[in-house]
């Protein structure tokens, strides 16, 4: 799979001074970070730290109170026509913890519907592409099944194929394996690993530290709405600097 590369900027996503609050509660505090093209970033941290909120602000499923997030050289939180926002969103793949497949559509329709309806691709072309993507996530034989007939792991792989069908240069994963039975985590991680190996720019909120260690180029550790540590997996797992990160890793080992 070839990824569209824009020559003018090596940064895929730039998060600048992003803050968000619900009433008095500050969820995100002045977050500043960037993801370069082809990079795999794993966001980890204790629950309630704001990791899911952060990743959801990147395609504007959550609004922010201040700051900016640029993608493709455009601030996705700037006032803009909804049409423009939809266009930007269609170029950011998003995988949800709860899969959110469309239960009224067959697996292949789940994957091919948005290319047809959003990008205006011919139905048969989108169908063939969907079959190729399903083959890629190992579910070619389930093309005509309905989501309700699939296991959690299979549903999540379909959800990944569905996001890939829009050919996004960036993929966001919001705890993609947290809702899965343990024996199904591996199959989803394998698909994500193969995506990373193909050079996809990825941002993953996950508790799978094995995945983080093997696949991530960098780890962002978030606590109480702040990124308090950015490090390579090696640095992070062997020699975390921040005491909160040390405690987090110690808790994980138990």
């Amino acid at each position: 799979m070839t990824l569209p590369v824009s020559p003018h900027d090596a940064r895929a996503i730039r998060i600048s001074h992003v803050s968000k609050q619900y009433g008095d509660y500050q969820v995100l505090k002045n977050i500043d970070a960037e993801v370069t093209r082809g990079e795999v970033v794993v966001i980890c941290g204790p629950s309630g730290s704001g990791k899911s909120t952060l990743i959801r602000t990147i395609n504007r499923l959550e609004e922010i109170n201040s700051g900016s997030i640029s993608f493709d050289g455009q601030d996705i939180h700037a006032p803009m026509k909804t049409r423009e926002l939809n266009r930007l969103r269609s170029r950011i793949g998003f995988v949800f913890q709860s899969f959110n497949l469309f239960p009224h559509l067959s697996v292949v329709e789940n994957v091919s519907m948005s290319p047809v309806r959003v990008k205006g691709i011919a139905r048969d072309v989108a169908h063939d592409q969907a079959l190729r993507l399903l083959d890629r996530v190992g579910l070619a034989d389930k093309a005509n099944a309905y989501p309700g007939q699939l296991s959690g792991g299979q549903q999540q792989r379909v959800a990944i194929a569905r996001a890939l069908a829009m050919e996004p240069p960036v993929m966001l994963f919001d705890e993609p394996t947290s809702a899965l039975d343990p024996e199904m985590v591996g199959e989803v991680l394998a698909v994500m690993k193969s995506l990373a190996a193909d050079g996809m720019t990825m941002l993953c909120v996950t508790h799978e530290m094995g995945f983080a260690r093997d696949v991530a180029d960098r780890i962002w550790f978030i606590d109480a709405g702040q990124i308090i540590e950015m490090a390579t997996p090696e640095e992070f797992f062997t020699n975390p600097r921040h005491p909160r990160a040390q405690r987090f890793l110690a808790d994980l080992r138990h």
Partner: protein
Amino acid sequence: MINDIIAIIQDYWLLLLIGQYPNGPLGGLANTLILSALSIGLAFPFSILLALARLSKWSFLRWPVTVLVYVTRGVPLLMLILWSYFLVPLLTGADVPSFVTMLTTLVVYQAAFLSEVVRAGIVALGHGQMEAAKALGHGYFGAMRFVILPQALYNMIPSILSTFVSTIKDTTLGYVINVPDLTFAASQVNNQLLTQPFQVFLILAVIYYAICWSLTHVAYRLERRITRRRAGLTGVRPTAVIAPVKIVSEQL
């Protein structure tokens, strides 16, 4: 008794079927069916618009529609019919045919009820489906049309259907403003016979029951077909499943 009923049907079937047409306006069963079909056909899309307005983030859309829905649901249909029948000509000076008055009132009334059903169906889906559609780049109307409504409306088929059935039954109230429908025709028959009200209105009840039951039955079958399709029981698979069974039975 049975003979009376047969005699009434033999004598008056045309009046019950089409009213005084072609010598007068179309009436009877034909008019009841037309009024029902038009009411349902118009109230259904209208109810979706009302439901979307009720869920809108814009208060200038949400509030007037909420008031309309609450008021309409809080007033007996007969009251609404009488209001439109007497007030609309007074206010506009226009001479509105009773059929149009009845149709408009029914559409508004049933759409108000249906809109709550549709709204409940949408709300029950939760945020996940809308978020998934948005994340894929669908706009609001695209998400509604391809993702939300197909599910919400399907889940609500039983409630939607019972509203359709009650719409058909409510057309009988047109009688009070002289809409020439089936009930009107039956009461004409009764007025001519004078001595057989039980027989006449039994025929009337049976006809209404048959119409409403057929609609319920059609929708039930439709619902089952969709359920089976979603469970993956049609298409290529059943032949694959059934074929070996057949072979086995042939071998026996």
